[in-house]
């Protein structure tokens, strides 16, 4: 175990824990843009710099391991000065269109500028400007807004392992692109949207079906309804409608989703959804009330049972329904109708 002092508070952590993790342990928040515990430490953005007694220069809390006897200041004058300068530099090269930016409310840059009272940049130099890549069906990439934290690149290469995104060019010209700058549609991108989920600013944004603000939505955590992995996710709901799906770090998905879970939720609010029971009357399926429908079904069940016995009724249950749904379906068949003729498509 390692003992160190952060802002005067003693804290004990495992060998190898970073200063950031040590601070988190005692509830001290150190700002980050580029940090994600799923990546190899890369310390790009430098916003997490802290002052370590005896160190030649400031140190990045996200990748420097805590060492015994370390004395750390996370908000000292030097630190705040450096953070403000870094924010100043980022703002100098970032469009200040927060009024219309869809990331507003979920933007780390916005939050930190608020925290450190950075109203505007003190520079009036060159700003980058790139054409927005809208070639992907589900998200857009606007390098003009990118702060080059590198999260998308590392997400794609180290966690999702699709290697579609990379750094292009050097110095001030550096930007995120795809190999040979062919555009996302032409790349190996599988539209998982995991890069979008980690973008701290509005550079990578989902293509929205309709307008909403992040502070307008309710968040409901649930389990994905596609394959059997059981990814955890958050449904962002506005006006009784799903606006967006965001990944949640669950047991099995480590905060990842695939194209289906992340972007294919339109079916829920699709106009073709069945809204009333239908009964076939002289060859046509026609709308009916629940009572009518239930009567038809119940009478049919009775009739068949009386005439041919319970085993003349069969049911296909659903591998897509709830556990509870399946339980009552099997109970209905076994306990109430009296047959074991229940199966589902596990085999298909």
């Amino acid at each position, binding site marked *: 175990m390692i003992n160190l002092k952060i802002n005067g508070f003693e804290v004990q952590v495992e060998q190898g824990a970073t200063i950031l993790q040590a601070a988190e342990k005692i509830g001290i928040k150190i700002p980050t843009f580029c940090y994600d515990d799923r990546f190899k430490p890369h310390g*790009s953005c430098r916003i997490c710099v802290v002052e370590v007694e005896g160190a030649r220069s400031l140190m990045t809390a996200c990748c420097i391991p805590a060492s015994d006897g370390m004395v750390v200041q996370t908000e000292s004058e030097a630190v705040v000065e450096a953070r403000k*300068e870094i924010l100043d530099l980022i703002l100098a090269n970032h469009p200040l269109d927060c009024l219309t930016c869809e990331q507003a409310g979920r933007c780390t840059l916005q939050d930190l500028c608020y925290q450190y009272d950075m109203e505007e940049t003190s520079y009036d130099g060159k700003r980058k400007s790139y054409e927005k890549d809208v070639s992907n069906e589900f998200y857009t990439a606007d390098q003009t807004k990118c702060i080059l934290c590198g999260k998308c690149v590392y997400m794609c290469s180290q966690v999702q392992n699709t290697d579609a995104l990379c750094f292009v060019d050097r110095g001030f010209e550096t930007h995120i692109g795809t190999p040979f700058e062919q555009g996302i549609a032409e790349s190996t991108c599988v539209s998982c949207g995991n890069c979008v989920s980690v973008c701290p600013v509005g550079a990578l944004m989902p293509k929205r079906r309709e307008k909403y603000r992040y502070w307008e939505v309710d968040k409901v955590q649930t389990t994905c309804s596609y394959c059997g992995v059981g990814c955890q996710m958050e449904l962002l709901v506005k006006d009784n409608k799903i606006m967006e799906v965001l990944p949640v770090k669950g047991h099995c998905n480590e905060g990842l989703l695939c194209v289906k879970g992340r972007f294919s939720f339109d079916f829920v609010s699709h106009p073709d959804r069945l809204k009333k029971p239908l009964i076939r009357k002289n060859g046509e399926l026609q709308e009916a009330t629940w009572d009518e429908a239930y009567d038809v079904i119940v009478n049919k069940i009775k009739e068949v049972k009386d005439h041919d016995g319970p085993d003349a009724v069969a049911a296909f249950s659903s591998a897509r329904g709830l556990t509870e749904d399946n339980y009552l379906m099997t109970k209905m068949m076994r306990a109430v109708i009296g047959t074991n003729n229940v199966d589902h498509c596990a085999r298909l």
Partner: protein
Amino acid sequence: MELYRSHVLVCGGTGCVSSDAFKIIDLFEKELEKHGLEKEVKVVQTGCFGLCEAGPIVIVYPEGSFYSQVKLDDVTRITEEHLMKGRIVQDLIYKEPGKKEASDSINNMGFYKKQQRVALRNCGVINPEILEEYIAYDGYAALAKVLTEMSPEEVVETVKASGLRGRGGGGFPTGLKWEFTSKAEGDIKYVACNADEGDPGAFMDRSVLEGDPHALVESMAIAGYAVGAEYGFVYVRAEYPIAVKRLQIAIDQARENGLLGEDIFGSGFNFDMEIREGAGAFVCGEETALIKSIEGGRGMPKVRPPFPAQKGIFDKPTLLNNVETFANIPQIILKGADWFAGIGTEKSKGTKVFALGGKINNTGLLEIPMGTTLRETIFEVGGGIPNGKAFKAVQTGGPSGGCIPDAHLDTPIDFDNLISLGSMMGSGGMIVMDEDNCMVDVARFFLDFTEEESCGKCTPCREGTKRMHELLDKITEGKGTQQDVDKLESLAKTIKSASLCGLGQTAPNPVLSTIKYFRNEYEAHVNDKKCPAGVCQALLQFLVIPEKCKKCGICAAKCPVDCISGVKGKEVYLIDQEECIKCGACLEACPFDAIKKG
């Protein structure tokens, strides 16, 4: 081997090659054949002699006659006079600056006298493409000694005891690096050589690769034995074709002769190596970026720890030194740690190679003992400032070094002194500036480079160098204010302390040092809107001195934009400052020095 009475050494370094060295060699061979001397006189292509100023260079032994700026036509004369009749062609012999008569022999030239060549000892002496010549100068004796008489631990100890420090810039004790790597856990380990010399004007590594490639092969094998590695990588920039070619030849020769490969000198030790060519990104000189590049990735620096000694190439423990560092190793092994530790200062042992450039007479490569003062280096070895101009500053350590003023010229050169002066040793660039240099402009020039070469990974370096550059532009264009200077200073400090790698942490040095030592020049720019050195176009002013003006009108006639008015013979001429484009044509034209620049 044939016996010759005379050797003609022709410099085959990149500098001289670009000025016809190869043609000169061919011509010498033709001429000698013509006179039936090919059996008596041998033409040898060597590495760089260092004094590139004087290239192409030809040295004739045994006399040691130093012919400079040799042209093709001179070859015939040298052959017929010197080689046939033994009459040295005096008018082609190099004359040192400030000396009347030519120096009789290379051994008596001031440029070489103060030098002590350890890393460069074979450069300009042997033919780098002939293994035997290297061996003749004790080549591979050190490897033989190490493999047959010493344990790996003893080798590490020797290097530690020598006090050698990394010549790539950091100045980290080499012996410690070797020790860390040898102690690191790992079945496979690597030795790597950083030959990605990025500093503009610096070419000491190139010179060793071109002039003495076997020295690198030998030392890397020694290092491999010491740290327990069986394979080495040399990372050379592709812009060094001759270096790559000669190093490859050396590697092949070493293999053919069993100096690389299995069971070297019957010791059971195996070692082999390969060249990896880099695309010439400055940042790839940074060790973690270099490793990424060797692995085939984008050259971007990585956070340390872990250090290469723990997790380097392909996450295996890796010993990484630069060319000059390695070039010292065989001598240390042969002559002993004490001999090496006897050279230099308390904390910086041995010699250091510098690439001397800028406003200096002896532009070129020189190797001097640590502790030599800047003054000695510039005025004795370097031959002083040309055209009697006054010295203003010397910038050491490449584009991210600081500018040191006259007041500190008597500082003995070593790692720590240079840092305390706000500069650094770097890989040994040394650029001299005289009174005609504007220090603000100089800072701008270097920022131009570092901004371009920033890898773009971390915010302070990527965005900050750009902004520093823009502020310097503003100031040199006369649009700057005192606030800009202050902003520049605080920004520079943040970049220095918050950047990820050495590039960003040092990039502000030119700015900080010039502000520190030449603040007055900055103030002149922002307050009086003047460029004291008269470099910054926007701040220049050409004025007619009335009392000197003879009303001849020549200036008006020469002015390309007709902004000079006056009446010939009647009234003094006047320059319209609004219109003037500061081309200086009038100044040159005026026969009476009646126009001044200010």
